[in-house]
């Protein structure tokens, strides 16, 4: 199977949240409680154990390039966020049970019958995507609709997206399409547009995302980390430090036993 993924073009997202609803329905996810966050039109707030698509509503006192408004500087940014299915996935590399696997579609999948809820993936995801469900005790996140892919269908969110802001398909083809779209935007004067996580060169810490984005402002504006790194990539200095510390402890034990001998 070829690698598949999402290209989320935030410039054409209209914030309808059809993706959130379609995801909840197809995957039969429980609700998160009726909360009012008080921040813009976003009462979903974040991705989580039972929220696998989340639409961010960003209100900026900054105009879009070429935009003219009647009341001064203001613009909306909308983005449907999702698990990135990283090429080097922090959660997968941290999982001690082998519950988190890479599928034949190159997606990252949590096997619910294996996960024992240790919680290590939760702190190892540099995007804060995966979480443990309290009533259930296991870790959950976007499956890239593994069951639908098996049946030859596209994921529910992409299917439901009315503007094709969420595009699903063969990863190489998506990247070509994204580059074409970026070029076109730049040609039309939207020079701030850029691709987030489309390749390993742009995001070495994850070696590229299978769900990448076209954004119009800094990653932080969308609550995305500017330079995410899969924790295991930086593990070596920690293990080296531990080796020295542990040898120090053994030396201290030898020293203590020998020093105790005198007097």
């Amino acid at each position: 199977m070829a690698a598949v993924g999402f290209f989320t073009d935030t410039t054409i997202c209209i914030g309808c949240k059809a993706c959130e609803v379609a995801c909840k329905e197809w995957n039969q996810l429980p609700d998160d409680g009726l909360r009012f966050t008080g921040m813009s039109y976003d009462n979903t707030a974040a991705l989580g154990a039972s929220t696998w698509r989340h639409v961010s509503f960003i209100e900026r006192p900054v105009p879009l390039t070429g935009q003219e408004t009647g009341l001064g500087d203001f613009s909306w940014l909308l983005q449907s966020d999702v698990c990135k299915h990283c090429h080097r996935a922090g959660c997968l590399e941290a999982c001690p049970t082998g519950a988190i696997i890479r599928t034949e579609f190159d997606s990252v999948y949590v096997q619910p019958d294996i996960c024992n809820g240790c919680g290590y993936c939760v702190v190892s995801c540099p995007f804060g995507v995966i979480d443990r469900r309290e009533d259930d005790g296991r870790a959950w996140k976007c499956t890239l609709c593994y069951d639908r892919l098996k049946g030859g269908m596209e994921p529910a969110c992409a299917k439901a997206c009315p503007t094709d802001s969420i595009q699903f398909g063969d990863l190489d083809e998506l990247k070509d399409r994204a580059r074409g779209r970026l070029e076109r935007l730049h040609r039309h004067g939207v020079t701030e547009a850029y691709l987030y996580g489309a390749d390993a060169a742009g995001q070495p810490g994850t070696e590229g995302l299978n769900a990448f984005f076209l954004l119009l402002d800094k990653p932080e504006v969308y609550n995305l980390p500017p330079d995410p790194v899969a924790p295991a990539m930086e593990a070596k200095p920690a293990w080296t430090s531990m080796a020295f510390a542990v040898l120090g402890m053994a030396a201290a034990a030898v020293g203590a036993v020998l020093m105790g001998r005198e007097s």
Partner: protein
Amino acid sequence: MTFVWRDLPSHSFSEDEPTYYERPVLKEPVWIWAVPLYFYAGGTAGAAAVLAATAQALAGDELHGLVRTCRWVAAVGGAAGSALLIRDLGRPERFLHMLRVIRPTSAMSLGSWVLAGAASATMGSALLSDHGGLPGRLGHFAGSLAGLLGMPLAGYTAVLLGNTAVPVWKATRRSLPHLFIGSAVSGAASLFGLLPVDLSPREVRIVERFGMMGKVADLAAMTVVEHEADRIEPVGRPLREGISGALWTAARVLTGASLALSLLSGRSRAKRAAGGLLGTAGALALRFAIFHAGKASARDPRATFRQQRQPREAEANPQR
């Protein structure tokens, strides 16, 4: 001109250092109190197993009491630690899934294997080594094995925290192992002061020296950890503020007081008990401080953003 959106959340939008309505980027660790308690139990067990194996190898016949006590401390620590970790799981009945695979990229996977081995070896050595003949020899062999496995047992938990996305743990991944090992030695030696066991004066001296080295290493490593965390301002903040900051200060004061007490002359039972109490409280406070600092750090989006931005900007402007 009046701006209708002055009162909207976007009013707080900062172009220089934006966040998404101050919401965290990362998920807070889901672990409960059992995890920092395990850090203490596993560290104590590891350090005790190392001391037991060393004493056995260098002067086994003369230090019989010390070896025996250390082995029981290690055995109880290993068993209690395993129980605490199972208690923390979302699905405790599936704890054996930890031994389904070996994943070298996961400190928790490697640590689970170390714990499984160390807990078995420490229990075996404690139960068997008092017997004569083959069981006794097996017990001593298990004790040596426990000494070897006790080393990573006391230290891997620091690597486990360092290899996460949580800013304060990630920033201190080089110094955290030294801190955890120092605290493990200090904690194990302190526990001896509280146990109702009769050790010979020589054995008391050994434990005291061991503990002093641990406390000195612990206090020195605390300073290095602070320095590493403070390189990026919001990353080091949890070690100064809030519950974690208070626990961090408490750990320093308690361990420092315990060290000062052991430097005073005299080896009375009461003095050792007081030093042991202070040292144990210090070791516990330290693990809870690091644990809560991680929770606070994960909640702070600026810690995450600046930690990732700063090295990039330093690279772009090398003169600064």
